[in-house]
């Protein structure tokens, strides 16, 4: 273990900085998300992921956001274990009938102000699963959605861009849902 740790120290972080196209957009995003996040949310945005019927492809890519190359936490974005700790619900899937109640209750358990991001093509309108007796067909049919990130599944870079777009929406208009009543 010592050897590996030492190697990591000598080699520096693996987190991307090299000037390929993707790397550049990550670096650019890093700066922009950082500014916006600090201004609006005081350095950090807590995200609760909810799978509402996805094929698990979106979950794999959301996971990848945490790997050393994307290192989501450097932007002040982090995943939390409970909706009670969350500012954002990241919802995937066409919303199956069997998950509808769980999604509603997760939304209700999230404190205001809160935002909902629907991730993936089937989270928009059911995608390839639309028309099924078992699917509601899109996250917005169940809870109000602030932003949709397309893709089947969206790549980590697209997910990052989407989260930035959310911050910009937030700064322009304030929370659309869940204003304290």
């Amino acid at each position, binding site marked *: 273990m010592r050897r590996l740790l030492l190697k990591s120290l000598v080699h520096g972080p693996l987190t991307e900085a090299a000037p390929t196209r993707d790397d550049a957009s990550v670096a650019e995003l890093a700066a922009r998300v950082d500014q916006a996040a600090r201004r609006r949310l005081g350095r950090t945005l807590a995200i609760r992921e909810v799978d509402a019927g996805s094929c*698990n492809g979106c979950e794999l890519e959301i996971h990848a956001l945490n790997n050393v190359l994307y290192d989501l936490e450097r932007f002040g974005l982090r995943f939390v274990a409970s909706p009670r700790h969350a500012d954002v619900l990241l919802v995937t899937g066409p919303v199956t009938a069997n998950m509808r109640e769980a999604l509603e209750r997760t939304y209700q358990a999230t404190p205001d102000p809160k935002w909902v991001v629907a991730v993936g093509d089937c989270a928009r309108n059911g995608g390839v699963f639309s028309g099924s007796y078992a699917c509601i067909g899109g996250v917005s049919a169940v809870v109000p959605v602030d932003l949709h990130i397309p893709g089947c599944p969206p790549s980590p870079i697209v997910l990052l861009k989407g989260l930035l777009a959310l911050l910009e929406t937030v700064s322009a208009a304030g929370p659309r849902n869940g204003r304290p009543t």
Partner: protein
Amino acid sequence: MGALNEAIRAGRRVSEHRPWPRAVVSRESWEQAAHRLHAGEWALVGLWGERDFAHMAVIERESGDCAVLSYACEGNRFPAVGRMHPPAIRLERAVRDLVGLEPEGLPDTRAWLDHSKWNLRHPLGQAGHAPAAPSVYPFLPAEGESLHQIPVGPVHAGIIEPGHFRFTANGETVVRLEERLGYVHKGIESLMAGASIQRAAVLAGRVSGDSTVACALAFARAVEAALGVAVPPRAVWLRALLAELERLANHFGDIGAICNDAAFAMMHAQCGLLREQVLRAAEACFGHRLMMDCVVPGGVAHDLPGDGERLLLVLTAGVRRRFPELVELYDNTASLQDRTVGTGILSPQLAEQFAAGGYIGRASGRKFDARRTPGYAPYDDLQFEVPVLEEGDVNARVWIRIREVEQSLSLIDEILRRLPAGPICAPASSPPAAGVSEGVALVEGFRGDVLAWVRIARDGNVERCHVRDPSWFQWPLLEAVIDGNIVADFPLCNKSFNCSYAGHDL
């Protein structure tokens, strides 16, 4: 001659079913099959239904023969296989929910996929049934002094799929775990019914996102078997390349995540990097990080680009450089071994009884790999070993993955070295003149064997398709392995299984 062959001969043979035989058998023969499954002579690899028929796919252990037995239901009833052979119980509960057939004598008649939330009943059976009345799901009782329950899910703490776990614990020790699944049931088989082959292939690729190549391949091979399509050699080899890349990516993800659940984040970070490198190579070569929609009926959608071979060789060389020191780290970290060795032991008897596929079966002495039995091209022409261990604990399941990573690396190198030239897709064929035809295929995904069965109608569309994820036979075993372990070791056991919720719920 094997007993399975005899059962087929005694039944009414269905002519257009390939490559395995299918026969409609008598009640006596169906019940006899349940006995043979119970006795361990045959392994159950699938059980599904449609209007008026129940079907089971079995493999004879000794001969390796495969077949589909069908039973013509009288009055919507068939003799429950689960009465003799417990691995069939959840499958039969699903048949009951989806098709409305009644398995006679089924020990557990609670609804499984139907949570009374649909606006209909029996979506694959006779239409027109009003939805089931909402009711509280009765969990199995666990009674005793000082027992307490821990309900978990369907929304879990991590970035994972939804399902409900009901733990009954005595202090720290789990005395019973009961799973309740079905939350991500999307009605995929209903969507496939009547769909074009192309649309059904897209759906098959989304049965379980982490196994998109395996599921799409199983579906494609079943369709090709039904229609008698010959896939060009280059496509056959490219499919194996895709499948091994998928296996690599998932095994890296799992090895890291298992260690992470023992709070050893360094392995998680290192394995996450390897996984990402595989996904980037996949995107560069085939246009999609998870390789969705790359396998299509008739062949593959994308050829390896000009620099693809170089990219993949760089990938495998890089992994070969980095991975051994990670394996050494895993093997030499006492605090990590303390968590994985002896934790969540699956007995070889249970693995065999449930015909547990993939690393779960192979870590418990079950030497089964669909690439070998029944086997399919190009694996019959490739050099690889199927690693097997006997211990059956979390550690053994990690080691099987490590050994399979090594095998996949050498398979990828060999495939690249010997990749035949030529077209990558069979020419689009007109609908079969013969009329209705059926096909079946068993494919080794990273998690285990995926079964696909399909009937193509006269108009060339899919009439009925069934995709059985390996998780069906693995989820029940997770309930068994956690028994007597502490609650804090559940994430380790669960991740070492890594069953698919989406693939199971379908």
